[in-house]
């Protein structure tokens, strides 16, 4: 048994008083003080039933607002320049000046791969057999599993150009039609172009204005026995220059990748043994 230090014992003895420093009384005083000071905290010491009811009502309200609120979306706003963004599941989207893109912030790439666009966007879609990539563009609807293509909307409707792969192009679901089946639209493959005019239910296949409508994004030109005049017309339009030649009857087959007009022209001149003037 240890001896108690005399000064400790004396300190206690000098201050001891019956009932002083009692935890039970202090606890009761603490409760009373807290309840009086802040009614909002009263539930911690014995919540009245109406308090529970109020909390439940507020919880139901918050839950309702949560369930029925518009799903938060990530929006890629319009810009003056061409820019490429990588979506959360790996798809690359190149937006032309003025184009916009949006998708649900939560669950994109897990629950769905649905995007909405305006303007002109080129997609290089990451392949996912179990989760199609779906685009709503004005009245148009596009579904792919993984491919490269371009979707453009304007006042004349929606147009789709496929660079590679297989694309379902249809009118967007509306009214009683909640989903899109393959028979509702057209299947587009490499090099194909289709347009959906406003108010029309099925897109129409047509010729694109140029052989490489997505070259603005890909900087890639592919020609298959294409009349040279069409080639020069596309390159002139793309680079904002005027290309002329006397060899009007020639046709071109070949692929060019790059951003330099001089380089592409030089390759064409060598391949066809002709002279092209750049104005």
């Amino acid at each position: 048994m240890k001896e108690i230090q005399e000064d400790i014992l004396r300190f206690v003895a000098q201050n001891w008083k019956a009932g002083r420093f009692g935890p039970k009384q202090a606890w009761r005083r603490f409760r009373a003080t807290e309840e009086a000071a802040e009614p909002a905290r009263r539930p911690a010491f014995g919540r009245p039933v109406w308090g529970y009811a109020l909390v439940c009502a507020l919880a139901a309200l918050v839950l309702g607002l949560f369930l029925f609120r518009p799903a938060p979306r990530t929006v890629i706003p319009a810009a003056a320049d061409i820019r490429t963004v990588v979506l959360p599941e790996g798809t690359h989207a190149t937006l032309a000046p003025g184009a916009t893109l949006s998708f649900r912030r939560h669950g994109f790439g897990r629950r769905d791969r649905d995007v909405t666009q305006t303007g002109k966007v080129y997609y290089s879609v990451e392949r996912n057999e179990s989760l199609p990539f779906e685009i709503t563009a004005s009245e148009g609807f596009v579904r792919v599993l993984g491919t490269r293509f371009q979707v453009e909307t304007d006042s004349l409707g929606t147009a789709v150009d496929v660079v590679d792969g297989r694309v379902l192009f249809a009118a967007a679901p509306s009214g009683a039609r909640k989903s899109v089946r393959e028979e509702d639209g057209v299947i587009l493959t490499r090099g194909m172009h289709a347009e959906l005019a406003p108010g029309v239910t099925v897109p129409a296949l047509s010729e694109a204005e140029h052989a490489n409508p997505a070259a603005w994004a890909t900087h890639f030109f592919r020609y298959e026995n294409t009349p040279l005049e069409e080639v020069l017309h596309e390159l002139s339009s793309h680079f904002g220059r005027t290309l002329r030649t006397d060899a009007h009857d020639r046709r071109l087959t070949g692929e060019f990748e790059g951003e330099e007009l001089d380089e592409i022209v030089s390759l064409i001149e060598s391949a066809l043994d002709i002279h092209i003037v750049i104005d």
Partner: protein
Amino acid sequence: MGQNPDIRELFRFHYRPLCLYALHYLKDADAVEDVVQEAFTAWWQKGDVADNARAYLYAIVRNRCIDILRRQGRQAEQLLPEDAAGAISDEEAMGRSALEARLWEAVDRLPARRRELLLMSKRDGLSYEQIAEATGLSVNTVRNQISRALQSLRNSADSILDFILLFPTLPLA
């Protein structure tokens, strides 16, 4: 809020030690109880249930005691806690507080007559003879009664003394 039982347990274990710790600073029992109540309120409003509550409470009590002493015009060198013999360190006051609380409870439990004799000895500093004379008891009776009272206090303090001796630098958490 799930901390209601926690704070009640904290009151049970720490209220009296905190009061005795604060008493080394303030020497005013009413002010001490106010300070400790405020510390518990601050802890409760802070909302941390398990995060080092004891250390937090002691820190709040110390700071509030020092604030009060400063408002009373004490100089920096007069802000140390004190016991019956004079100034002690803050660490000592903190370390003693649990033992002092245990002794306080043991004094509480003593039979009233025996407790009064003990207090006359330890509080008032009277000798056995002076107590015998004041109470009309024999010196032997006074000695026996005080001896039994001290025995009770030692028994109560034994476990916590062992604890303190084994872990003299036990952290607060």
